[in-house]
């Protein structure tokens, strides 16, 4: 038995929300690995929401669009709501011309708004110089 290929991008858990992203260099194998790892994490952590940041994607072709649509559907079947955040404006224009509307995929302008939609709120004003965190 071979070890499953890892997607190569971190999937972070913040409470009941998973936060992850797509890199520009997505090939078929990486897309499949990402979908599998994410669905395992959803079921393993009982996540209710998934934020996928796509601000790194310089293009979305029909292959990547299909991956996003399938991911969203699979996650929904597992009870998690997916929000795809941070699409670059030229990518949005091109997608429409390509004839792809990403039907069923919820989007947000950026990760912050996506997280807010998933129930996360911005923390109170951070104190200057407090970014060290508490002993981590």
């Amino acid at each position, binding site marked *: 038995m071979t070890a499953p290929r890892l997607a190569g991008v971190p999937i972070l858990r913040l409470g009941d929300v998973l936060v992850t992203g797509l890199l520009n260099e997505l090939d078929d194998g990486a897309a499949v690995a990402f979908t599998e790892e994410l669905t395992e994490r959803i079921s393993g952590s009982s996540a209710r929401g998934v934020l996928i940041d796509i601000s790194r994607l310089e293009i979305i072709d*029909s292959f990547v*669009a299909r991956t996003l649509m399938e991911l969203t559907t699979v996650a929904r079947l597992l009870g998690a709501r997916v929000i795809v955040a941070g699409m670059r*404006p030229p990518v949005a224009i*091109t997608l429409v011309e390509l004839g792809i509307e990403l039907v069923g995929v919820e989007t947000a302008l950026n990760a912050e708004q996506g997280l807010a939609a998933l129930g996360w709120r911005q923390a109170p004003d951070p104190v200057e110089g407090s970014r060290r965190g508490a002993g981590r």
Partner: protein
Amino acid sequence: MAPAGESALASWVTTVPTSAEERASAPAAHVVRTEEDLLTVRHAVRAATVEVGFGLVDQTRVVTAASELARNAYVHGGGGTVTIEYPRRPGGRGLRLVVKDDGPGIADLDAALTDGFTTGSGLGHGLGGARRLMDEFTVQTTPGGGTVVTVTRWTAR
């Protein structure tokens, strides 16, 4: 400049341009045999769009069209080549992609250009989508004889 064709294509692959000017205008052929080649093609086309002077939206259109066509050649044609050309016309520069494969050809071209039609694992927007993203679009295909898709986008329309 060499005319388009089989023998010329072969010479482009092996000939290294000498001057910077020649390098800017000489066509470059990229082989598409693997997944990684698709990424290489995308990078090469992106660099070419920058060189020609396209804005960000046009860059994105052309690279997306290249990705669709290269994937078509890879998935349906069993691999092929993507040649980048730099045509000029009065008042504008252009970028032309010649995507060639030796696959089974497209049996029903009208159907293949229809959104949602797919014989593969995509969304069926590849060919028709690439046509909409580019200014010029031609397909030559013969059953059993492979497919050549030629697309061009101009800086000034």
